[in-house]
């Protein structure tokens, strides 16, 4: 969109838009710094670095929350309706999940990679159309907020589960601790993935009269759910742990990514809102 916004009430709106997207830039810088701090920490032991990294992430979380709150106010609806808006929420939930895991388990490489993924989400978002567009009638529902939030809390947890599993595949020490992180975070993510699918089903039933229509997004979310269900069962039944289980977590994450991005770009269906 051209920067030419001179009409009177337009210029005010344009200014407001610019002012609040500063929060997005701050968050981007904060996630970038956090990533850098975590990675430097891998090579140099320093007491200050973990503090700085966590403060950066915290700063990123606060900025993203402020961004979402202001956008919510300007749009007069929850900003959770297209790829751009969902990526911002995804970056926020990744930040929250990683801060929690970092405080609890303190594994630099996991925190650093998770921060990098949050940064990638924000970077990708920066290429997309940031314009606030009106909602289609089907999206005007209170289920929108609860459905998107549960999905992205789940996605963030599964992303952290993927990161710690990925590290298991390449690392020789701390594997037991990493395996515990993966298992716990994936169990949590599975609970929220379930909540996301269920809230989606209940919403679909109130909008279209069917709680399940095998549309590609629904089907892929179910496939993702199956992969993680297998992950949880195979650990218990066959004692798959560490590297073997980690491979399944990686497959689950790829299925999740396809549910999130692939379905929107490669397959068509009810979820093609952006």
């Amino acid at each position, binding site marked *: 969109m051209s920067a030419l916004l001179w009409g009177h009430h337009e210029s005010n709106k344009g200014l407001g838009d610019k002012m609040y997207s500063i929060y997005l830039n701050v968050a981007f810088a904060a996630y970038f710094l956090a990533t850098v701090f975590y990675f430097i920490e891998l090579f140099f032991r320093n007491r200050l670095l973990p503090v700085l990294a966590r403060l950066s992430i915290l700063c990123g979380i606060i900025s993203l929350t402020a961004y979402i709150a202001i956008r919510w106010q300007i749009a007069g609806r929850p900003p959770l309706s297209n790829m751009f808006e969902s990526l911002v929420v995804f970056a926020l939930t990744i930040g929250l999940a990683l801060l929690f895991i970092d405080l609890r388990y303190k594994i630099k490489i996991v925190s650093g990679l998770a921060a990098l993924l949050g940064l990638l989400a924000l970077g990708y978002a920066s290429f997309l159309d940031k314009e606030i567009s009106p909602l289609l*009638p089907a999206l005007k529902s209170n289920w929108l907020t609860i459905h998107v939030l549960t999905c992205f809390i789940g996605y963030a947890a599964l992303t952290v589960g993927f990161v710690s599993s990925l590290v298991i595949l390449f690392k020789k020490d701390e594997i037991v601790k990493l395996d515990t992180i993966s298992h716990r975070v994936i169990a949590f993510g599975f609970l929220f993935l379930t909540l996301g699918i269920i809230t989606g089903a209940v919403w679909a039933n109130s909008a279209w009269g069917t709680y399940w229509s095998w549309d590609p997004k629904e089907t892929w979310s179910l496939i993702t759910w199956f992969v993680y269900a297998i992950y949880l069962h195979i650990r218990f039944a066959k004692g798959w742990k560490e590297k073997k289980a980690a491979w399944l977590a990686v497959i689950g994450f790829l299925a999740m990514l396809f549910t999130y991005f692939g379905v929107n770009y490669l397959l068509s269906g009810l979820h093609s809102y952006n």
Partner: protein
Amino acid sequence: MSIKQGNVWRFLSSIKLAIWLISVIAALSLIGTLIPQNQEPAFYVEKYGSSGYNALLTAGLTDVYASWWFILFLTLFSLNLTACLLNRFSLKSRSLGTLICHVSILVILAGALIGMLFGQKGYMRIEKGQEASFFISQNKQVNLGFSIRLNDFLYSESLNPKEKLLVYCDKKDDCCKKAGLSQTDADRELISEISTEIGVESEISDTGYKVRVLRYLPDFTMDTSTKEATSRSAKANNPAIEVEIKGKDGAKEVFWVFARFPDVHQKKIGNFDFVYYWVGRQPDDFVSKITVTKGGEDVMSRDIRVNYPLQFAGYSFFQSGYDAEHLNWTGLRVVKDPGVGLVYSGFGLLILGLCARFYVSPFMGTSRK
């Protein structure tokens, strides 16, 4: 020897089988997302050729999720799950969460089965001012036992924020210099982008001229006898806006700007050129104002909107279609699904079970890791 000790039983109730069945169901589901499902034959013939279409049809790949083999695997999975439940779980508090999770899956599947066997799904179309007492399900007429009258149908669109009234002016003119140059056309300069929101007055950059949009017509036509501008239909065949411009001296002029015919422009006002940049508006709301009647008497009046279905006598009515040309009728999806209650109970149990399994039993001390 009890059945529980047999090899067959051991196999049927094994988690190993469960994992294989889940993998197969996941793989079959995946295939169903790669081939578009339930399309018209012409679609498949065009995409895969007629022999390809026949092959897909024979294999059930045009309707994967209702094919016998998909249902077979779901049935096997349900049997396996039931066997697991009978074999493995007890009502001890530490495995209660796991038990609830697995029971909930069976409850959801049972609800889905009930919906499949006893549910009805169909469509009805009601003309404005008329009433209808049946819907069409699989080419058959199903009587409702009551009627629905469509009193009115309202359709509204939301303004696309990209939609603008662009104001250009001659390069030689001084208003351009005053406003600063930016987007160059051949011989004219874009000096302002004005919102097409009805009634909002904006100044054309710093020229002292003020404009506002008075009306929007999606399908402009001029009544030849009355010279009155009206919309021929609700479809955006000829989007046009009526614009009022007010000069520095307060003199007003009103004119129409057409999105599809940028050159149709009656007069030049203050050396400005107006272009209606139209992007396509989105539906904002569909409202069917209906009254339910039974035995000739009105029972209730309500609005049916997307996300706000009407529920009456076990049926639900969903806003799902409309007359895009003239807004003269509404299309309602009619659903009766006696399994929904069970499915929702299953949903509740699943969440409860997962919470108990992951977040209650780990703190009960004796649970396995």
